[in-house]
């Protein structure tokens, strides 16, 4: 069989169809429009059944912990009457150390049920370890493909740590150099092995996260007597935020605001061989966060089940230096040594708490395990070796992704950069116009966009008109 890039990509639809266990054509409406809720509901599992499947492999039911010392500190740095209480969902207590076990558990369960011999996932992060761990528990083979090295053969420490973890669970780990051809190579392997595509973006993956939102709502109510006012969620590909928000709604927490947070890496090119090792975060950053918010169907399945514009109420950016600082605070004040992913949203929560009332509740929806390669010491040592300056100073004003990481000198410097939702919504429509060459939209497509970006149909029509004129 022809293994050239072109030939493999031409077989893409056929390969995906065989490997995802879902017929996506059933949900298509017309043009860009498809029935998202029908796709999510056709899984055939209630959230109770998902909880049961997760329990079989020890996933979920993680503790919700109030950060009492950090909350005291926030009050010290807030105006009178301000300083909301922060709780974190300690997802590192899942089997492989992150919320990604929730995501992997349903995919691997489906793979087994549908009779696949193994599973494949393309991921450099915790999802690989989660798929490998769940596959081990269910007796399936697993292949994890990770973008790992630049052309010098130098690997990001966090990704090298993940390779160790995946190999530890018995996976075959394939490490590739920088570039979007990771997707091509994944297709090639799916075709060769006939394994299940445990995509991050299938409905199975997202449904698995809904239990996280449900638990957050119920546990917060149990501990404080009410649902959280705000849930902050680290946003990369969109799955965590989408799944959490859906779960909150299933628990009845309709008024809880969902705020996405990403590390600001704007200006670094994600497919650049040189930029690859000039970033200290491998996920939860704007390199995924913005593109996946505004064009979710860039994923490895025909229709991405993670669609954050349907759920995110606000989107904020924080800096690398702030996350390292917060990682230290969490360890030194709360006795929780945790990885960078959840600490991204913890930074945002810290800054938001100072603006919110003291009787309000913020939940940070995840923590992740840490260790060699993931700790601030490992990442910052690596950064210095790659020519990045590490200094103390103002973490927002002095920050320069790819050149300088600035560690705050004082908690009062913890802040965020707000990306207006209107900007993301415009960008969503722009992607449709530019990428798909759309100039006219049918009524059904307008209705679909209206659901996607949560604006009424007239606003959608006006936005399209405005952006079309601008693009001429």
């Amino acid at each position, binding site marked *: 069989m022809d293994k050239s890039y072109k030939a493999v990509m031409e077989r893409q639809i056929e390969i995906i169809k065989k490997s995802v266990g879902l017929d996506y054509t059933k949900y298509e409406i017309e043009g860009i429009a498809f029935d998202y809720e029908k796709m999510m509901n056709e899984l055939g599992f209630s959230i109770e059944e998902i909880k049961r499947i997760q329990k079989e492999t020890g996933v979920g039911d993680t503790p919700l912990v109030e950060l009492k010392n950090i909350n005291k500190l926030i009050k*010290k740095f807030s105006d009178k009457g301000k300083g909301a209480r922060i709780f974190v969902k300690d997802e590192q207590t899942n089997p492989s150390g992150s919320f990604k076990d929730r995501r992997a558990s349903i995919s691997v369960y489906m793979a087994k049920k549908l009779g696949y011999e193994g599973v494949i996932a393309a991921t450099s992060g915790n999802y690989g370890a989660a798929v490998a761990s769940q596959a081990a528990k269910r007796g399936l083979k*697993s*292949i994890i493909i990770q973008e790992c090295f630049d052309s010098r053969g130098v690997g990001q420490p966090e990704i090298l740590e993940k390779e160790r973890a995946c*190999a530890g669970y018995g996976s075959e780990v394939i490490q590739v150099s920088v570039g*979007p051809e990771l997707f091509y190579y994944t297709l090639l392997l799916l075709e060769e092995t006939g394994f299940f595509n445990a995509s991050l973006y299938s409905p199975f993956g997202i449904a698995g996260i809904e239990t996280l939102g449900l638990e957050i709502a119920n546990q917060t109510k149990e501990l404080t007597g009410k649902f959280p006012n705000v849930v902050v969620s680290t946003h990369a590909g969109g799955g965590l935020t989408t799944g959490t928000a859906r779960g909150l709604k299933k628990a009845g927490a309709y008024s809880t605001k969902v705020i996405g947070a990403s590390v600001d890496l704007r200006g670094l090119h994600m497919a650049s061989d040189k930029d690859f090792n000039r970033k200290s975060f491998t996920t939860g950053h704007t390199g995924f966060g913005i593109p996946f918010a505004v064009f979710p169907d860039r994923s490895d399945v025909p229709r991405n089940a993670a669609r954050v514009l349907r759920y995110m109420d606000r989107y904020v950016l924080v800096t690398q230096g702030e996350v390292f600082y917060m990682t230290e605070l969490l360890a030194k004040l709360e006795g929780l040594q945790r990885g960078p992913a959840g600490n991204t949203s913890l930074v945002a929560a810290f800054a938001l708490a100072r603006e919110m009332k003291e009787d309000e509740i913020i939940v940070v929806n995840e923590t992740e395990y840490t260790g060699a390669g993931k700790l601030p010491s*490992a990442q910052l040592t690596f950064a210095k070796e790659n020519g990045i300056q590490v200094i103390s100073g103002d973490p927002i004003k002095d920050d320069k992704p790819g050149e300088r990481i600035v560690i705050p000198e004082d908690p*009062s410097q913890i802040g965020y950069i707000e990306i207006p939702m209107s900007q993301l919504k415009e960008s969503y429509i722009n992607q449709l116009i530019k990428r798909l060459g759309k100039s006219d939209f049918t009524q059904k497509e307008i209705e679909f966009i209206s659901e996607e970006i949560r604006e009424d149909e007239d606003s959608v029509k006006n936005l399209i008109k405005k952006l079309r004129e601008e693009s001429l």
Partner: protein
Amino acid sequence: MEIKKGDWVQIHYIALNHEERVSHLPEDTKKVPFEVRIKGFLEDEKAEIGDIVTIKTPIGRLVKGKLEKVNPKYEHNFGEPIPELLKINKDKLFLSRDRGEKPQS
């Protein structure tokens, strides 16, 4: 050092030469090939670094490539202590100011 059948090794190969890569790449990535590294057990009776060999991966897949390393070491570590983080101190954080006051620089 003799490398023999059953040894845990790492192979390397080029999956796409630079001219076979996708067109929409940044200039620096365009110039380099798309490379692959995999670890597994050596299938050949014996080999030397640089030989084209076959390995059996932990899930039993047979893959061919250039022998790069034997018993490849985990190279990531905890790094060095970072002075900018070491100075974060619990007592100092709480010593400072009362509610509402601006922190000193």
